[in-house]
Structures are given as C-alpha cells and as structure tokens.
C-alpha cells in the first residue's frame, strides 16, 4: 500500500508539488495565467512582477510553489534561473537583498553562482560591494532571466529604507532581466501609494477566500489524495454538504484551516496529532499574531480579543455591550481595524457583523492563553460541528483518559450535554436568520436545505419553504411545507401557516383543487390567528366563483382584527364578484369602501377604481367611468403592472368613446412601461393594431403588428391574437407595399412576418389575404415589373419557413402568379395554368365572370 501523501499545514513548499496540484481548488485560472506570464518573462523581453495578496493560510505559498513547479520544464530550464528567498529573511539595504538573492542562487546553482563571490566582498565599502555583486550577478546570469520568488514582500518593504528601495528599483529598471513573484499578507503602502517608488510596479492579485463549494472540493481532493473513500462519499451526501457549510464559518474560507480540519476528519483517535499541532500553532503563529497585537491601541486589542473568544461574526451593538463602550466609539475603532486588515465585515439586513479577518488568529491567541492545556476552542468547535453526539461518545469510549485527544472529545461532549444548542445547526441558522428569502443565493439555499434535512424542525423546513417560494420553485415549496404539515413537532400555528403557503404554491403550480383543499383545512383548524384565517378565506374565494366566492370574501370581511390588507383584498374580490353577478350597487359599495379606506395600499386603491370604472361604464355613466380610471392612473406609488392595466383599460374606454388618439397614447404608454405584464402588453398591442387596421396605413401599424405577433406566448395571448389574424394579414400586405417600392425590403419584411404568422397558425389567412389583395394591387401605381417583383419577393421569403409551412402557402402563391399574369395581359387564358377550382376562386377575386361550361 502506498504511503499517505504528506500535506504540510504551514509550509506547502515541503509538500510534494504533485500533491499540491491534486488538492488545488478555485485558483487554476490564476495559476495558469501566472505561469504564462512568468514564462513570457523568461522567453521574451517582457518582464512581469506578480504580487499575490492574501492573509495567513490563504494559500499564497501553495500557489507560488505550483507556479515554480510548472515552470520547471525543459524548454525553460536553460533560459531561467530561480532565486527563492526564505520566508523569514530580511534585508535592510539593497546590497543585503542582492546578497540574499545571490546566496539563494549559489545554493541551487553552485557552479554558476560560486559562493566565493559573496565571500570576496568582505571588507569592501557598501557601495563598492553592491556595485561588484550587481555586476557579478548579471555576468553569471548571462542572457538568462532571473525569477525571484519573495514571500512576505510587505515585511521586506518595511525593513528597506526608501533610498534602498530606489536603488533596487533602479537596478531592475536598468537591467530588465528580472521577473518577480511576491506575496504579501495585505496590500501595503509601498506598492499602493502614488508617492512610493514601487507604486504600480507589481501586478497585484488578491487571493479570494474559498466558498463553501470550494471548501468541499478541497476536502474531497484531500480525501481522494489520501484514499479516504468513505469520506469522499460522505462529502457528496446532503449531511456532508451541511457539515462543510457549518465548518465554513469556523474556517472563514481559509484553506490552511481546511487542511488542518481534514487531518481530524477520519481519525478515531487524535493521538500524535493534537500535541504536535498545538506546538506547531504556538511556534509558527502565536509570536506573529502577538507581535501584530502589540501595534494596536488597548481598545482595539480588546475588540480583537472579544471577537477571538466569540469565534463567529457578531454585530456592532454586541461588541459595544461586551466592552461597556458606546457604539459610536466602537464603530470608529472597527473602521480602523478593518482598514488595517484585522477584521472583516458583512452586512445582513440592517446590521453589520464583524469577525477576525484571519481565523488563524483565534487559534494562535488561544494557544497562548491555554497555559492549563485547555483544549483549543476552534478544534473543539470543529469536533462539535462535524461529529454527532453518538459519534463523539463512541470515540471517547475507545480512548484512554490519559490520551491528549481525550480532552478534546470530552470537552465537545460536555458542551453537548450542557444543553447548549447544536452548534452545527446554530451556525447554519445564524447565516440565514437575517437573510430575507428573496436575498438568498445558492449557497444560502444549500445551507437552508441542509439545516432543514438535518434538524427536521418545522421552523427550519418553513424557512426553506419560504426561500423556495421566493425562487418560484413551486414543487420544492410544496414539499417543504408538507414536511411542516406532517411534522409532529409542529404547532397548530406552524401547520396553519404551512397549509396556507402550500395552498398558495399549489395555486401557482396550477393545482387549484389541492390549493382549495389546503385553505379549507386552515379554515377548519381551531383557534388559528385571525389574520391567517382571513387570508385563507380571501385566497380560497379568489379561486371560487359566484356565491361561494362571495361567501368566502364576506367571511373574511367579517373577521374582527383581520389585517387591513386582507380586508382590502376581500372587499375588492367581493366587489368584482358582485359586478359579475350584475349586483352593481353592491359592487360599487364594496369598491368605494376600499377607495375610501384609510391606509389603503396604492395597488388596492387602483384596482378598486378600475373595478368601479367598469361598473360605472356598464351603467352608462361614461364620465364617471373615465374619472375613476383616470384617478386610478394617478394613484401615487402604484405598481407598473397595475398602472399598465389601468392605462390599457382607459385606452379601451376612450377608443369606444370617440377619443382614438388619446386611446392610442394610453396604449402606447403600456407598451413602453417597464414591468407591465405580457398579457396587458399584448392586449394593448392588439387594440392599437385594430385601431390602425381601421384607420389607414402606417409604418407604426406595421411595427405594432410585428411586436404583437412576436409577444411571448402565454396562455392568454392566442385568445387575444387569433381573432385579429385576418385583419393583421391584410394590414401587413397593405403596409409592406405602401411603404417601399424596393423589392429587397419587401423580402426582408416578409421574412420578418412569415414566421410570426406561422407561429400563430395564421399562414392560411395570410395566403387568403394575399390573393384577396390582387384587385388593390391592380389599382396601385406599381408597374408590371413591380408585380413580378412582388411575387418573387414572396417566393424568396419562403425560405424562412419549414417545408410544411411553405406548403401552406403553395396554392396562394400559385394564385398570385396567375393573377399577376392576368393583370399584365388582361387575358383570361393566363388562368388556365390553374385547376378549375383555383380558377374559380381567382375569377371571383378579380371580378371576372364565371367560366361558361362547354
């Protein structure tokens, strides 16, 4: 069996590059792009200077190790030399930097860069030594490119005075043989401020934190590398995904922490892992973070410590309360800490949550505080999040109490037994609590689904249902609320709300019967809240008709303490139902009550006014109808959809009351209104098209027709369009001929319209209109050549149709050809190319007498 590949937590350069390649996630594009840039630096005169920015553990060394690895190719080896400076090396002058570079080259290429070169500098003045070493380096390098890898470039910039930076920059500018690959913890003034010598010198790239999915891929890659088949499979399960989502909050997208967690994942015992790990953290991280903390003011240190203890993002208010300080004071400090890259924040709703920018800081600081060997909270939290209680108990039973890892499992179990909430669920919930359902991205959806599946709590299923509702995923919504309805743990109120929502989802899905059944179940539940009861009546009433609907709306209206919006909806619903039953006075009374309701919604008021306008018009009160509908249009805050409806209805009314121009103006507004529904737009287009059909020819009419016919098909549109097809067909033919005499334009226009008519099954009517138009063609000023061109245009345009649709126009086109021949010759013999039945049709069309029977 192969030995498990070694993955170093803190020094990726010690890990085999092949293993690093295997576990790489998210950064393939960045890696290949960077390799290409350095390759270009090696083989051309273009020299790149790359700087990768990311916090500790973000994967910088991993990345540059792979860049270096991928550049070790035969075609480059003769043309480049690599100097990789040690991470902790510092230089206080350009000369010392040159020495570091030369020594690195000596260690790797001793024959080409003899170590004696540096030794020979001893005793020289700095200026002379720098000059000599610079010349030696260039001479030994020959015509090759020197690729310098420098980690923690920000530290180097801190130690080099400006004068030395200028010398370095001048050397690089005067001898363009260098390419640089640098890393830094954060963007630093030495490269980002305009007054600094190296401003804009580096091509900076920020390493993004891993997303939940990236993290899962990383863990899968590690599992695959280590041949942990069970873990690999587990990570594909919903539970596995949920756990990755939960530990994501602990790791904060930091790849190094995932690497550390992965070590713990498949070990029953943590022997030989915990102690070395604690020591490593202490040795490698703590001094670094302690040093960073020393630069802060006392209050800033307290903030960092508070966030470290808390371990997860907390709002400003909580930080202020925890430190007994005002929010104003804390906010200023938080801003400074953010600018110094100690903290990061995220906005959820109105609140801003802060956490440590580097999760490793929490780990490191706690190591320092854990003098009594208290288990590291981050690892305990990780164990709590990853393992179930049963799992932890089993592992504890297998461990001797003296083993170092016993403390970790024992601490995790103690926390579980203390009645503390399930940390995994808490973490998943925290990320969702302040998120409105319509603001949930795919990652939040996964968290919500995992949480619901794991906890199986009605509240979590309900939250998932609301998210699916916002995404208009009706089947998923129905399934989620079904889990609430079927749950024994659900309260009556939870079941009632779930039934109401499931009914609404059924309704959207088109399952009206199931929807009505759900609302009926709500109505029959004892002791439910008045609001929910009222809404169930309103929704059920909306799906019923006549007396049943009126009864439901009336029940809703009679519920005391019903929400105003439900009352408004019930009155509107009943008003419209009364109208349909020709109970005009009652309809007007209900709708007027809505119009006069204090605090009525804008859309509610507008809909009530539209309804009242319809009632007034049906009663012959035209002026009142127009006044109502105009008032509806003027309601402040009205939605685009409702405004479109009102404008369309007023357009309709005005077209009936001899104000066609105003009507067209209203209808045109509908078409141009962003947010208007397709159904209303198609109605407006239809009305405009019909108006133009009756009032003459225009390019506008043609455009409107094209828009109308091109409107996406919904259930309602064929009903609107189909009756108008014969008129539209006639309009299209007349308009095309009227607006241009260019046969090419005829073909283009026909190619535009033919598919539209085909789509609406209107080719037969179009063919009919084409033949019927022949007398008008004869009366037009077009000459005989134009007649032929007209027929040719039709033949050419047919290529946009399917063969079946082309067949549908075969007879009309044959009739057109024969008719045109007749118009040109005025000789009835031209019609003899047609069979008798077609001759008869054409004769009728052309006003010729019927053929006499021989």
């Amino acid at each position, binding site marked *: 069996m192969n030995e498990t590949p070694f993955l170093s937590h803190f020094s990726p350069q010690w890990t085999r590059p092949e293993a690093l390649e295997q576990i790489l996630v998210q950064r393939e594009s960045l890696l290949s792009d960077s390799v290409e840039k350095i390759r270009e630096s090696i083989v051309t*005169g*273009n*020299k790149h200077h790359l700087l990768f920015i990311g916090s500790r553990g973000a994967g910088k060394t991993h990345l540059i190790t792979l860049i270096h690895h991928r550049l070790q190719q035969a075609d480059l080896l003769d043309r480049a030399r690599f100097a990789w400076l040690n991470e902790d090396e510092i230089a206080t002058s350009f000369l010392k930097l040159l020495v570091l570079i030369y020594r690195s080259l000596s260690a790797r290429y001793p024959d080409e860069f003899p170590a004696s070169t540096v030794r020979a500098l001893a005793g020289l003045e700095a200026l*002379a030594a720098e000059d000599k070493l610079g010349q030696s380096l260039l001479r030994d390098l020959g015509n090759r490119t020197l690729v310098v890898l420098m980690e923690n470039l920000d530290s180097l910039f801190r130690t080099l005075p400006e004068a030395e930076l200028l010398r370095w920059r*001048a050397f690089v500018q005067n001898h363009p043989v260098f390419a640089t690959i640098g890393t830094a913890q954060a963007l630093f003034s030495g490269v980002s401020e*305009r007054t600094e*010598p190296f401003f*804009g010198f580096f*091509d900076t790239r920020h390493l993004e934190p891993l997303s939940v999915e990236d993290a899962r891929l990383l863990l899968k890659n590690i599992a695959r590398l280590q041949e942990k088949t069970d873990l690999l499979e587990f990570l594909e399960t919903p539970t596995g995904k949920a756990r990755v989502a939960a530990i994501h909050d602990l790791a904060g997208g930091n790849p190094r922490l995932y690497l550390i967690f992965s070590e713990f994942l498949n070990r029953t015992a943590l022997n030989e892992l915990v102690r070395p790990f604690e020591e490593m953290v202490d040795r490698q991280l703590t001094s670094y973070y302690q040093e960073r903390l020393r630069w802060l003011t006392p209050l800033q240190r307290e903030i960092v410590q508070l966030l470290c203890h808390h371990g997860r993002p907390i709002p400003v208010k909580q930080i202020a309360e925890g430190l007994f300080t005002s929010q104003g004071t804390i906010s200023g400090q938080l801003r400074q800490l953010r600018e110094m890259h100690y903290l990061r924040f995220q906005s959820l709703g109105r609140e801003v949550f802060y956490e440590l920018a580097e999760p490793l800081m929490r780990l490191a600081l706690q190591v320092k505080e854990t003098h009594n060997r208290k288990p590291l909270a981050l690892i305990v939290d990780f164990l709590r999040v990853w393992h179930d209680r049963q799992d932890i108990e089993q592992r504890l039973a297998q461990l001797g109490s003296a083993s170092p890892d016993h403390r970790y499992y024992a601490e995790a179990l103690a926390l579980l037994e203390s009645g503390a909430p399930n940390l995994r669920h808490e973490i998943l919930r925290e990320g969702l609590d302040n998120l409105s359902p319509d603001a949930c991205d795919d990652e939040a959806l996964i968290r919500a689904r995992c949480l619901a599946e794991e906890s199986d709590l009605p509240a979590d299923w309900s939250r998932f249902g609301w998210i699916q509702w916002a995404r208009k995923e009706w089947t998923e919504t129905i399934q989620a609320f079904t889990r609430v309805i079927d749950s024994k743990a659900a309260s009556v109120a939870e079941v009632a709300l779930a039934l109401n929502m499931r009914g609404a989802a059924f309704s959207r899905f088109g399952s009206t019967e199931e929807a009505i059944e759900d609302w009926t179940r709500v109505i029959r539940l004892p002791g439910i809240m008045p609001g929910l009861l009222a809404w169930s009546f309103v929704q059920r009433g909306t799906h019923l008709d006549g007396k049943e609907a009126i009864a439901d709306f009336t029940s809703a209206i009679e519920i005391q303490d019903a929400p105003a919006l439900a009352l408004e909806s019930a009155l509107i619903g009943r008003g419209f139902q009364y109208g349909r039953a020709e109970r005009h006075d009652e309809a007007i009374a209900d709708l007027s009550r809505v119009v006069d309701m204090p605090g009525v919604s804008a859309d509610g008021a507008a809909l009530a006014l539209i309804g009242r306008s319809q009632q007034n018009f049906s009663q012959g009160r035209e002026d009142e109808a127009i006044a109502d509908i105009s008032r509806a249009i003027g309601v402040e805050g009205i939605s685009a959809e409702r405004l479109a409806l009102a404008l369309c209805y007023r357009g309709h009314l005005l077209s009936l009351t001899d104000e066609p121009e105003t009507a067209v103006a209203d209808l045109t507004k509908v078409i141009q209104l962003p947010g208007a529904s397709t159904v209303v737009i198609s109605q407006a287009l239809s009305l405009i098209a019909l108006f133009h059909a009756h009032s003459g020819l225009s390019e506008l009419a043609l455009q409107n027709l094209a828009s109308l016919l091109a409107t996406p098909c919904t259930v309602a549109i064929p009903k609107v369009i189909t009756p108008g097809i014969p008129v539209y067909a006639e309009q299209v033919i007349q308009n095309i001929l009227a607006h241009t005499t260019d046969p090419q334009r005829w073909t283009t226009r026909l190619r535009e319209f033919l598919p539209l008519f085909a789509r609406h099954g209107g080719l037969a009517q179009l063919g009919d209109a084409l033949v019927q138009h022949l007398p008008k063609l004869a009366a037009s000023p077009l000459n005989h050549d134009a007649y032929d061109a007209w027929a040719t245009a039709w033949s050419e345009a047919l290529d946009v149709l399917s063969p079946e649709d082309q067949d549908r126009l075969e007879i009309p086109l044959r009739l057109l050809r024969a008719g045109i021949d007749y118009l040109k010759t005025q000789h009835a013999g031209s019609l003899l190319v047609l069979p008798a039945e077609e001759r008869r049709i054409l004769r009728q069309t052309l006003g010729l007498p019927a053929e006499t029977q021989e």
Partner: protein
Amino acid sequence: MRHVKYHHPQMSSNPGGQLAPNQIVGRDDLIASMWSVLKGRSIYMNDLRRIGKTQIMVKMHAAPPADWVTAKCDLGGIHTAAEFATQAYRLSAAALSRTTRVLRSMHKLLGQAGGLEIAGLVKLPDGTPAPWKEVLRRTFADIEEAMCDQGPGHRMLFLWDEVPFLLSNISHRESPEVAMQVLDMLRALGQDHDRIRLLLTGSIGLHHVLTGLKAQGYNGSPLNRMDHIQPGPLTPKHGVELARTLLQGDGIRCDDWDRCATELASAVGHVPFYIHRLVSRLPKADATTPKTIQDLLDREITADTNDWDLQHYRDRLRPYYGPDEKLALGVLDAVAVNEPLDFQAIRREVNMSGAVDDERLRALLKLLCQDHYLTRTPENQYRFYLSLIRRWWRLNRSLS
C-alpha cells in the same frame, strides 16, 4: 464600428512590468517628433506618474536614428554627485565602445590601469575618488570629440530617468549646494557640447525639487533652454487599439470587442498602464461587457484599500494649495460635474458670494493645469486632464 488594423505582435497585459520595446505602442509619432526636437536642443519630459514616460525612453533607446548613440539610465538609486559622474562615464564608455575609440581624456585622468578599477566610483591611480566635476567635464568632452570623429550630424543622447530623485538624494545625502552644482554643471555642459543632448524625466516633477532648492538659495534656471514635453495619454485610437489587443491577448471572453475596448480605454483615460491593469483584472470566467468593465473599475477605485490611490489627488490639495484648498475643491467639483467649462462658468460656480478675486482664480486654474488636474482645451475651456481622475472625483465626492 470600423475595425482598426493592428501591426504589433500578440500581447498580454503587463501592468507595471517592463515591456519589450515592440510592445510599447501608440508612441511612434511622439517619438519621431522628439528626435526632431533633439536635433536642436535637449528635452525635459514631465507628466503624471504611470503615464508611460519611462517606456517612451525604452523605445527611443531601443531604436535610435542612424546617427545617434544613446545611453539610458534610471538615476533614482544614485545618492552622490560622484556616483552620478561615475555612472555617466560608465554609460558613455559602454555606449561608445561599440562605435569609436573610448574616452581618451578620461583615460588620461585615470591612468592606464585606473580606468578599469571601478567599484561604485571612478578612482584616480592613487585610489582616491576622482573629482566628480572633472569626470563629467572630461566625459562630455570625450563624447563631443568622439561624435565629431563620427562625422557631421552624429550625436549622443543621455536618457536619464528619475532625475528629480537623483537631485533629492544628493541634496539629502550630501547637501543642497552639491545638488545645485550638479544642476548647473549639466546646464553648462549642455550649452558647451552641441553633439550631446539630454532627455530628462522622473516620477515626480523636477519643479518640486527646484522649489526646495530655491528655498535654499538656488537661483538658476536649468530647464530654461530645454524643450518641455508632456506626453499625455495615448490618442483614443491607440488607446482602443491597445485595449483590444490586450483583451484578446489575455483571452477575455467578449461578444463585442470593439465596444468593450472603446469602453475600457476611455474609462481609464487612454493611459496605457491603466489599460494594462484593468484588462489584467477582468474576470476570465464570465463574458465581459461594457457594463462589467464600468462596474469593475468603479469597485476597484473606490474599494476600502486599493492600489489606484486616486485619493492622492484629493489629499495633496492642502499641501499644494494651502489656503486655496477649498477654492480648488469648488473648481474641481464644478468641472467634474459639467466639463468642459470656460472661465466665466467656473467663476459663476465657485464665486457665488463674489468673494473670490478673478486673478486669484486664474492663478489657481493655472496651477491646477500644471499639476495635471485640469487641462485647457483649444476652445479655452477646462476639463479634467484624465477622465479616470474625474470618474473617481465624482464617485468620491458623491457628485451626480
């Protein structure tokens, strides 16, 4: 849109790095005119940082006209007059060794062996550093002689980058007086040697260093006899051409190259460095559109911490303009919203109370142009020198 024909090789973005001369594009006309000017006199080239001054030098150095010899050097790392003189000598020796006998007069000074023993400084045979003025004087004289030997019309050009840093370094390390002497020496040598020309530039304006030296008693005008050239951004045609080439070279996915290239180049004011930078930061996974370009740039320049440092243009108003800081803010706000504006319109915007004297406003406008905030159009109107700065100004100051 009409497609532009491209004559340069495949290129990918390289913001801040060193470009091979054939990848420095859009400067050919300017360079031709500079060679023409150099026949008559030396040039001082001044403009904003990262506008591409060094790259112009690189391209000139790579392909000088037939009768020119060039020597190019970044002087920012030099801190003493002696180092500077040594560098001038060394550059000349390297440049002339390819074309003619080397520097006879200098060899005489250094002796047969001394001239080869250079480790940071030119030394006399006794090991003491050679007097820097003498080194410069003899080096220039040798070059003049060598050029005359070459034939009529032959000249040598020193392309000296980071001259302001050089003077500032000498002023700090040695004394302001030595820096003044270097300036005077250069002016005198330039006058005495018709076969030698200088092209001086730097990241910071030389006038800032001169102001400091004048405060110490310097009263020379070393730049008076030089031609002043401000290269500015690329022309829109060349800016778009560069953007398009880089978008394609970087493998950016894009449905409409011409629109995206036009949008990108114009958003960053056709400055090649910013074109390189913005292209390099476009995400490769998603298709790029004019909107994604605009959004990315806005995010980049307004991020909490960013490496565009356009805040610099706001922060330096106080040190530059002192009591006129507020007036400068008013002028820049007005021009940012409604550019281009003529003097009368600016006066109306900033002088509502009538408290600002016209001459004071004129003087300020002149300074704002000198410091590359504004530029004056041929129609005598003012607009932002770089559209990128205007863009940031509007975002930063929440101007509509």
